[in-house]
């Protein structure tokens, strides 16, 4: 028996937080209480007030507006980084699992090697060669996701490539492309979708970390990690400056994790004990 999604507490809380995140990002495209880039030297490093509900930063910019705009960066990086990892990983896993042999062996060793490069390490190397940018952080995070997507896809292909329906399709004259694209690929999608939802909050955490180090989003653009980097110098003067952007990250990641856990429970009856 499957429980009704509306009664699954984890799922509902996760969904509400995630919708709030998306709504915040969408609203901030057309409206923020103040211009997130507008400076005011007189109103620097204020705590929360009526005029500035989350206070201001070292240039007197409105933190609420900046935290709102930061949601866009997080969503953008999450989607693009997971997209990169998934796309490249699926291609690797597909070729590995379908063709097997030396190709498989080679690709899998390459995937093992890529596993040695967490996002932070690739970002350091790429930033040293090209200068740090948001694009580089997205690529670095995406590369870090490659192994898990490659392994998942490979496992599915190994499972399905000798099944009757695949053998039948081949016997009817379907080429490799058609067998992969039309017959095996659709079966590999459910675990990939679950993995993508799990990876999304991880990507947001990674972006925040890279921006904190100065390897991601560059000033004056708002990013939660970058705000924390700037806030650290003023911990004694305005502690709220370090609390709100970090809170935004934590709540977002919590919401996405709960949503992912809920989805997995609802989609996979096996985990329902």
């Amino acid at each position: 028996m499957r429980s009704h999604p509306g009664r699954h507490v984890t799922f509902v809380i996760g969904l509400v937080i995630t919708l709030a995140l998306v709504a915040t990002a969408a609203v901030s495209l057309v409206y923020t209480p103040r211009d997130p880039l507008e400076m005011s030297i007189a109103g620097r490093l204020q705590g929360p007030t009526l005029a500035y509900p989350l206070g201001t930063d070292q240039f007197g910019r409105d933190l609420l507006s900046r935290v709102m705009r930061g949601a866009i960066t997080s969503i953008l990086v999450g989607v693009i980084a997971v997209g990169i990892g998934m796309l490249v990983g699926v291609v690797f896993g597909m070729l590995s699992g379908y063709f097997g042999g030396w190709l498989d062996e080679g690709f899998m060793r390459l995937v093992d090697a890529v596993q040695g490069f967490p996002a932070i390490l690739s970002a350091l190397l790429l930033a040293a060669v090209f200068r740090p940018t948001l694009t580089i952080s997205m690529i670095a995070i995406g590369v870090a996701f490659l192994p898990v997507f490659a392994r998942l896809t490979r496992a599915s292909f190994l499972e399905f490539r000798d099944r009757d329906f695949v053998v039948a399709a081949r016997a009817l004259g379907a080429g490799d492309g058609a067998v992969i694209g039309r017959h095996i690929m659709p079966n590999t999608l459910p675990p990939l979708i679950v993995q993508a939802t799990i990876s999304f909050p991880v990507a947001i955490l990674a972006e925040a970390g890279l921006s904190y180090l100065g390897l991601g989003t560059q000033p004056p653009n708002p990013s939660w990690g970058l705000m924390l980097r700037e806030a650290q110098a003023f911990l004694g003067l305005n502690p709220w400056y370090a609390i709100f952007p970090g809170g935004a990250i934590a709540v977002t990641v919590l919401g996405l994790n709960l949503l992912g856990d809920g989805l997995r429970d609802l989609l996979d009856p096996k985990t329902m004990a």
Partner: protein
Amino acid sequence: MQRYVVRRIAALAATLVFVSLLVFAVVRVLPGDPALIILGLEANPDSVARVRQELGLDRPMPVQYAQWVGRALRGDLGRSIQYDLPVSTLILTRLTVTLPLTLLAAGLMIGAAIPLGVFAATRHRRWGDYLTMTLSQLGVAVPGFWAGLLLILFFSVHLGWVQAGGFDGWGQGVWPALRSLLMPAAALGLFQFAVLARTTRSAVLEVLREEYVKTARAKGLAERRVLFRHALRNALIPIVTVAGVQLGQLLAGSIILESVFYLPGLGRLTLAAISARDLPVVQGVVLFVASMIVMVNAAVDILYGLLDPRIRYG
């Protein structure tokens, strides 16, 4: 048995070749001239030519790769432009901070996560379980560097108990050094702690459903003995695997925490090297850390095979 280990080591060697190729590719093959990166775009052509010759950039690509790997295997990772010291010396010096930080974080993580995970499993679907799982949800959601900032805010800025960071080295004694690593290690281990607690809980829960646990209970063994002798022992295999893989993650994560707490480790060395265009240092550190992570992962894999024959012959 022996064949399994030999096969895994051969795979590790192949993986390490790929690691070195990836680092080399990013630095050398991707567009961008290391000499220009080091000297800046406005450098005069003579010095560019000199640096290119010093770095061996005027030779064919495969020759450069072979020379670079050959030297790296002998422990020669090149020379820092900024410090004019061998990169390997710099790495070894900074490791005296990064490695203890990583190991301390791992110790805290394992010491807290395993008992908590076992506790949650024995209180399955009761308040103790829910409380532990809520804690671990929070641990997974809070970024480590923010946890570090909050610790500084509370213990240093608010209470004034400890200094907000910095590291005076091991010369002052082991205890003061460890004390300045304690907050960073706690923040570093938080995420992995939460993951490991969840892993432990589900591994123990799974084992507790096994027939041999029922048999042990039916024999009339005390619950404590059933739990530690029969259940936890078998649950340890997945726990050790996850913990092993986490070691590599902690090593990478220490790069961020060193920045939060101003610790002179590998991470700060590399970040400073990026600002100073000290490419050999960045290249050396990345090669070193990536190789360490790959080797730890392979060691865990081999250990897993030794512990569980089903993997070895599967």
